[in-house]
């Protein structure tokens, strides 16, 4: 699963013909950026565009040597780029709306402050990592084990309810929970080093 560290991935980006690296980079951060842009109010299509622009912008800046690892983490850097792209999109959308309807007064059309932005971004980042961890665990455990975990974590069911639903013992449910969590935590430690 962990094929490239961040540094290797970034080095690969220097070579525009290295498609494999680009698509891994894209696959890793694109869903995160789309989701972030959606939370800021863009529709699916605009969010996709904003994510694409942000990643392309990042790759371009990186190739030109503007990204300096010492100056800040990739995470922060991407946030700045993504926010700018989202604001671009919002401005364009507003202009489009004004052009169409002549009405510029959206009732709650406000751009969140930086503090909110970075909170949202952190939440997205966390979610992306959790997703990766789940993807890592999925092929390594029994389907019932994963299902039990999902029912507990996502549906918020109690141990009893999960046991009844899956037809396993209550103890098996908590064994599954502990098992999946231990796996995920271990993988997350590795992930956080490279993301």
């Amino acid at each position: 699963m962990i094929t490239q560290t961040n540094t290797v991935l970034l080095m690969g980006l220097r070579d525009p013909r290295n498609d494999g690296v680009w698509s891994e980079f894209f696959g890793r951060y694109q869903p995160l950026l789309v989701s972030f842009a959606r939370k800021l109010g863009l529709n699916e299509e605009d969010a996709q565009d904003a994510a694409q622009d942000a990643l392309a912008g990042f790759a371009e800046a990186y190739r030109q040597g503007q990204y300096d690892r010492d100056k800040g983490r990739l995470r922060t850097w991407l946030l700045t780029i993504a926010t700018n792209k989202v604001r671009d999109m919002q401005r364009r959308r507003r202009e489009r709306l004004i052009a169409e309807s002549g009405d510029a007064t959206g009732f709650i059309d406000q751009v969140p402050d930086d503090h909110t932005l970075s909170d949202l971004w952190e939440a997205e980042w966390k979610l992306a990592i959790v997703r990766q961890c789940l993807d890592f665990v999925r092929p390594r455990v029994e389907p019932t084990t994963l299902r039990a975990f999902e029912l507990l974590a996502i549906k918020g069911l109690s141990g009893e309810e999960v046991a009844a639903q899956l037809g396993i013992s209550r103890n098996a449910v908590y064994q599954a929970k502990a098992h999946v969590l231990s796996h995920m935590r271990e993988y997350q430690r590795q992930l956080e080093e490279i993301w």
Partner: protein
Amino acid sequence: MVGACLDAAQLDELAGGRVPAEQAGALRQHLDGCPDCRERLEECRRNLDYFNDVAEALRAQSLAGPRGPAGGSALAAGGPVASDARTDAERVPGYRIIREIHRGGQGVVYEAVQLSTRRTVALKMLLEGAYAGARARWRFEREVKLIAALRHPNIVVIHDSGITAGHYFFAMDYVRGQPLDTHVRLAAPPLREVVRLFRQICDAVAYAHRRGVIHRDLKPSNVLLNESGTPFVLDFGLAKITGEDIQESRAPAVSVAGHLMGTVRYMSPEQTLGVPEAVDVRTDVYSLGVMLYEVLTGTAPYATNADLAMTFRNIRDQDPPRPSRIRREINSDLETIILKAMAKEPERRYQSAGELAEDLGAWLDGRPIAAKSTSSLYVIRKLAIRHSFESLTLFALIAAMIGFGGVSFYYFRQARSDADALRDTRNALLAMNRSLIGERDEIRAALPRQALGWFLAEWEAGRLERARQVQGDVPPDAPEYAVMEFWLDDTADADGLRAKMGASHAALADFAVGVRAMRAGRTDEARHALRACLAGHGGDWLKSAAQARLAALAAGARPAEGRP
């Protein structure tokens, strides 16, 4: 070592603090002697923190994922789970949360500072919110515009509102003070003082009514007195917003029941029937009546308890004890005012909060009041009706006229025959709710054209609140919606409407222009536009409506009195 090693379930419960005290002792004893289990428990604790993080992230995702906004407002759907509004509130852009003031069935209220103005505000986060879909959000915004436009010295001002991280929020004036009932209980002001205070409250409610806003959830806790004793009415129109969300998002039974439970004491008889359409300004008059009864007598007019069915029945059928028997100072005029405000039948109440305020003022000044005490003939008739089987039939008939007869009848009979079963009542309410939603969806799906007819009838009769309700059921992108908007706005420009409607709805635009000109008394313009409508490509309804108005013009008549 004491006892067997702990299994996974026991460890998880122990780590999460979910072990009953009587069992914990035995487990602890074992742990003391078993390093293995202690180590496993530690691992389990580490897992638990991580699990909470993971669960929060995943639930936020699963909620936000498939039902995101269709390009709506800036901070639209998405964000964390509804179960913890605190973390959400801390993300409301432009505000800093100071503390939590109140947490209730509808949502959470915080004291907060609006960063741009440094103003202290009360920030209310509603539990229901952006997940309800684009239509609900649009309704929310429209409703909030109406509420935010209220400016009265005794109404709390809403400064800002929006949707953040999946929740609606409002920022309003922060009133430092206590609720009306607490004030009256603690300060025990003289009778006249309470009446004077209450008159101010009625004036505020009357003001809102004149602007087409019904409160729907008046109760003592929604009236705050600041430190200098000025009353402020809170949460105007919020009940409508949250109520609609409950229906639209098919919220779980608990919140529907919880919502009802919280406000049930001040609910009017028509509200207990659960028919939103039956609610009008007189519903607020009723709630004011109950509040007045309570603050003056210090007791509730009916027994209310957890048994919803019985409480509802009391509200519908039981006469409250005469206030003068509870407090001698209450003279017959004041008693008449109280009882008239809380009459069971809306038509027997004061027809507006303004009339109630007026009579309270008359009482304070020693002038004659407008209300008459209940006639004995009426009492006899009422008794006769209540104790005959016809009451059921009558009720069903009324309900059928309202339009949801079957369900209401079912519910009514259910409540009667099964008085003890709170759960049954709740189920019936839910079934009714679902059925109402079904019916409403059907109506909605039916022609907006039909809505236009209803709207016109209400608008021409000057019933703006109802007209707006009708408009609320029309999709905002429908041409009919634009026409209603045009009628509601006296300053809207006819050419603007024509341009907006385009060639395909030119006849409708002509009709709209004609109708408004007619109401404004500009007969020539009206005739011209209506003829243009007849000459265009409109439907049958449009043509006959235009013809009818042309005929009225020819006869020199004007439609119903009372310009809106």
